[in-house]
């Protein structure tokens, strides 16, 4: 039961990070450079220790809505509440190690991590077909073709951030991507029509699933790393960013990240179904057909009518490119306010989000913040961030949805990021022509 609920919640998820508005406003963390490579770190030398992140987002329903009586699962009400188009995504990454240092006025950084995500866009009709069957949809064409992308790769990033003048700072990152495994759809036309005549099934398909794992037996193969495609799958991506300090209290910044693709060429399988297929039942020659009508024969006949064609051709997938723009205002030395807008392009879809942040410094040890995110498609939510520094040890944890921890049954999204960094050598004001990242004395150490 729990496994199913959990995975059902994941079903509507994908790979590349859920919008983390809170992290945008914590540039003291080297991890913030993932959102904007122009952000200036406050320490000359940073070593990010292994850390993890995961995020879930489901546009359709909460865990509580799925739970039926007696602990069972009741999808009926959930399916009734589905939108015409629904999404589910999952993100995760495991940071191996990251290093950042400053040479002159230029900050350099390098990072290695493993990223994974799952994405599914599906119509309400697909879920209704699963739950209600096709019986209620006789004489109706159901557009079903879900868009699916499950992928995993490792990323080696090299970052650079430098001042242009005393107001403007720019940054960029070049990232090598090594594909681990991928399953994605490259064509998504799939409709099903049930004829009222005597329920003949007609499918119009232009549907293709590409995989860079052994799809036929991928559940077993996926547990055997030696069989993964590995080096045959590679790609490049880049991040670009800038930051402009209007005055000591106000700054604006913008970035475009994950601009790139991965080409999948290892152990590729493509399954394509293209055409119109009509299944009219078994064709019996009346009394001369002595084999009769049996269920197995019916199922075999139905399957053969929709058999896809298998090929093995390399393919490309694009990373979800995101553009962000934000403003940060530090009215006092302890208070930080801001807002950031994000637009994401992914799988021919566009997603918009806006996060409003408020944070406060407590002494020189703690920074805590709250972020409220309005996100298209997904549930609006309140997130929280905390960062603690003890000497060179910088620890942080954050979630974009605190509701998950208190009323998980009402949550449609969840995320958690944590990590520990080692930071050394305060960046002095004189070293940097901007003051955006330096109002907070607590990070300057003693």
């Amino acid at each position, binding site marked *: *039961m729990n*496994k*199913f609920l959990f995975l*059902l919640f*994941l*079903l509507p998820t994908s790979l590349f990070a859920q919008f983390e508005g809170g992290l945008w406003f914590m540039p003291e963390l080297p991890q913030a450079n993932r959102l904007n490579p122009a952000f200036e770190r406050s320490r000359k030398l940073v070593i990010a220790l292994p850390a993890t992140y995961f995020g879930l987002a489901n546009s359709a329903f909460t865990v509580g809505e799925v739970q*039926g*009586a*007696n602990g*069972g*699962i*009741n999808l*009926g009400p959930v399916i009734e509440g589905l939108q015409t188009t629904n999404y589910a995504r*999952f993100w*995760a*990454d*495991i940071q*191996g190690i990251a290093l950042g240092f400053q040479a002159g006025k230029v900050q350099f950084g390098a990072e290695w991590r*493993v990223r*994974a995500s*799952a994405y*599914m866009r599906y119509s309400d009709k697909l879920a209704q077909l*699963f*739950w*209600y*069957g*096709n*019986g*209620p949809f*006789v004489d109706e064409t159901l557009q079903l073709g879900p868009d699916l992308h*499950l992928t*995993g790769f*490792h990323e080696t990033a090299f970052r650079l951030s430098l001042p242009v003048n005393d107001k403007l700072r720019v940054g960029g990152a070049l990232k090598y991507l*090594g594909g*681990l*495994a991928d399953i994605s759809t490259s064509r998504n036309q799939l409709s099903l029509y049930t004829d009222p*005549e*005597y*329920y*003949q*099934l007609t499918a119009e398909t232009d549907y293709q699933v590409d995989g860079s794992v052994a799809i036929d037996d991928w*559940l077993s193969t*996926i547990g055997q*790393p030696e069989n*993964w495609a*590995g080096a045959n799958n590679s790609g490049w991506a880049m991040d670009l960013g800038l930051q402009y300090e209007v005055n000591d209290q106000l700054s604006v910044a913008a970035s475009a990240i994950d601009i790139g693709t991965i080409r999948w060429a290892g152990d590729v399988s493509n399954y394509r179904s293209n055409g119109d297929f009509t*299944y*009219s*039942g*078994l*064709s*019996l*020659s*009346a*009394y*001369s057909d002595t084999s009769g*009508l049996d*269920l197995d024969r*019916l199922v075999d006949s*139905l399957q053969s009518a929709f058999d896809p064609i298998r090929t093995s051709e390399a393919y490309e997938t694009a990373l979800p490119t995101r553009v962000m723009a934000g403003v940060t205002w530090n009215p006092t030395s302890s208070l930080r306010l801001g807002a950031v807008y994000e637009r994401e392009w992914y799988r021919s879809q566009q997603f918009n989000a806006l996060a409003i942040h408020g944070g406060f410094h407590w002494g020189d040890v703690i920074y805590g913040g709250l972020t409220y995110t309005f996100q298209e498609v997904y549930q609006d939510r309140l997130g929280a961030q905390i960062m603690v520094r003890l000497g060179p040890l910088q620890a942080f944890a954050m979630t974009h949805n605190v509701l998950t921890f208190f009323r998980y049954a009402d949550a449609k999204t969840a995320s958690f990021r944590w990590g520990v960094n080692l930071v050394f050598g305060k960046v002095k004001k004189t070293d940097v022509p901007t003051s955006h990242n330096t109002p907070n004395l607590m990070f300057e150490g003693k």
Partner: protein
Amino acid sequence: MTYIKHCFLILLPLFLLTSCIPDEDDLNASDWQPEIAVPLFEATFELEDILAQFDNTDVITVDSNRLIHIVYEGEVFSLAAEELFTFPRLAGPIGDSTGSLSTVFPGFGSIQQIDIKSGNVRIGASTTDTGMVRMLVQMPDLTFNGVPLTFDTTFEAGTIVIKHFDLAGYSLRATNFEVGYQYTSTQVSTGNPVRLTGGIDFQDVAYSYIEGLLDPITSTTPIDTLRIDLFNNRESAVLKFEDFDLGLTFVNSFGLPVRGEVLQLDALTNQGNTLPITSSAVAGGVDFNYPSLSEVGSTKETLVSINDANSNFGAAITEGPNRIAYQMEGTSLPMTDVGFLTDSSRFGLDMRLDLPLFLTADKFFADQLRDFTIDDWGPIDKLEEASLRIQTENGYPVTLNMQVYLIDGAGARIDSVFDGFRQLLAAAEVDGNARSTAPAILNFDVEFSAAKIENLRRTEKLLVHLDAETLNNSMTPVKIFDDYIFTLKMGLRAKFNP
């Protein structure tokens, strides 16, 4: 690289989406009752499929216009020559030195030639004289390739001599019904005549050909029947054939003029009714054609058609006869010319009832009791309710209604598939030639409630009741062609507990 893979391995289980297929225990069964609608089959019934349901498919024929005929035929009687004429026993004494055998061939006014195909003549004699005796017998009327039969033997006086002579191939030309013979017997040593005591007779003689003038003879067949099973399943059906033909074919290879008379021609029904068939075609008898003397070995036919124009048989067919009973009498006519018969000559009557399917039919129904078993109840157990969607495309101008009763082990009707009689096939419309123009399409659903599904469990037999009638409540005559088909399409819509 290994580290990379293991990191990814940690993440992968999170999106093993295929694991999202819910276990049965996870889903509330009462909440998840999907309803599926799938086509089951499409079956086309051609003529041969339908005919396969009949026990006797030999009765179906198709003419050049593809019109179907039901034809019952058979040789209802046959009379061979040997049943009419047998070679009479010929025997005579041997007492004097010469003699003759006189015989009569029944039915023949005179005999001119008899060809013998088998048999023998036996001669037995003895004498009281002494010494060796020679006996010479000659039969001038009995020749083989023109040579008279001669019998020459010597025997010891005081003994009895018995000799056989094979007659195969001999031809007998009798005059005045007498077969003459002469013999002489002398003592070998002296040449003096010897008086013999004995006899001569013909044994087991069969002919192959007889020529002569026949006396009028009469032969009557036993009462026989031609079976018609078309109406076996009919109880109250009303069938009216627009066209039919009861053909009587008289075959004759006797070289004699014969007249046949129908003593009895009745249609017998299942209900025990006897419907006499009268026809001007057979009234007063039928003179059979016969081969002339130059046509020995050939057979002549005489055809008589009894149809709607010359008989009352149409009314009899309407009553659904299952047999036609008949009795014939044949009489040879006085002859003025020489006639003949051979050992293979026969009189025969072949009867052929041809019923072209150009008809109107009403209240034509049939019942069939069939065993009912379901080997695997697994899928059915999961059904909450179901309905069958049926589409029929009927090229026949015939309406078919149906009901199927569920019969339990005690023979009781516990349920029925349809609420009442269900029209299964609608009749196709016909053109001016009574041929259907386009299939008639009929759509309907058959509901199976949970209670009916439960009753299926108790069902051991199905009683299938069919009721058919032709177009427009059997008011319009229709023709049934062999290129008609009907198609049955069936789909299932069912709500079930997975």
